[in-house]
């Protein structure tokens, strides 16, 4: 498993290195994206999908029970939905720091700093703007990310028992050249 993780890291790094920071005026601009399988806690994609289906089915049944006046039963099946994600190396700042970001058509805010720490550079300007909320995007598209806004600065991730919504938060938004 550790060996596999190392391979994945190398694969993603290769993408980052191949990205040449030059100005291109000839539109369109293409960017290779890496497909990455996240095996955390789940043996394979099939099992991950089966677990997810079980949760969805359970939710459906729980809703039916609730509809007829019985106590709502939350289904508590630990799953990690992010079995397949697509990532790309994106450079931020001057000189650029490359971050591996999930490509997400289901959200529109771009942000960094989750895994490797954000590196402030000379071209970074703090807008003083706080991120106050992120929209809930139930549609699972490329990255299968599901953003659930629970309260200010908090949101859940994926299908991780979203009722309990693991808290996460975003900090400041900065325009970066």
């Amino acid at each position, binding site marked *: 498993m550790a060996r596999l*993780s190392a*391979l994945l890291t190398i*694969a*993603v790094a290769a993408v980052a290195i191949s*990205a040449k*920071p030059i*100005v*291109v*005026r000839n*539109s*369109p*601009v*293409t*960017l*290779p*994206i*890496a*497909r990455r*399988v996240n095996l955390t806690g789940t043996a394979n994609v099939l099992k991950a999908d089966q677990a997810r289906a079980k949760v969805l089915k359970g939710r459906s049944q729980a809703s039916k029970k609730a509809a007829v006046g019985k106590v709502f039963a939350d289904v508590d099946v630990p799953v990690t939905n*992010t079995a397949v*994600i697509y*990532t790309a190396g*994106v*450079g*931020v700042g001057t000189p*650029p720091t490359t*971050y*591996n*970001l999930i*490509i*997400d*058509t*289901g*959200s*529109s*805010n*771009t*942000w*960094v*700093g*989750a*895994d490797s720490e*954000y590196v402030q550079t000379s071209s970074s300007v703090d807008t003083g703007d*706080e*991120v*106050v909320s992120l*929209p809930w*995007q139930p549609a699972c598209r*490329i990255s299968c*990310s599901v953003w659930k806004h629970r309260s200010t600065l908090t949101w859940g*991730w994926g299908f991780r028992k979203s009722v309990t919504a*693991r808290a*996460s*938060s*975003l900090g400041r*938004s*900065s*325009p*970066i*050249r």
Partner: protein
Amino acid sequence: MTIGGLVIENQGVGVAEFAFGFGGVDGILGIGPVDLTEGTTSSGGDIPTVLDTAFAAGSIDANFIGVSFEPTTQDSVTNGELTFGGVNESKFTGQLAFV
């Protein structure tokens, strides 16, 4: 910000103070519609997406993005492609359908 060969200046980027469930990745490149950014920051209004900013600067000819990805049996493979400001005609056959 540099994305592939594309340089985008003055792009608003959120910086996480902490995050959960993002093992091995650093964040999100949000390429959805700009409407989803409305009210997400304390100043209110929209935050232009990377695509909006690139288009406004004239770096790409159209404010849309092409996405191609394909199934694979391998654990990790770079077989997808984003096309900023256009579509890669070699990635499909026939006519593009608009719905």
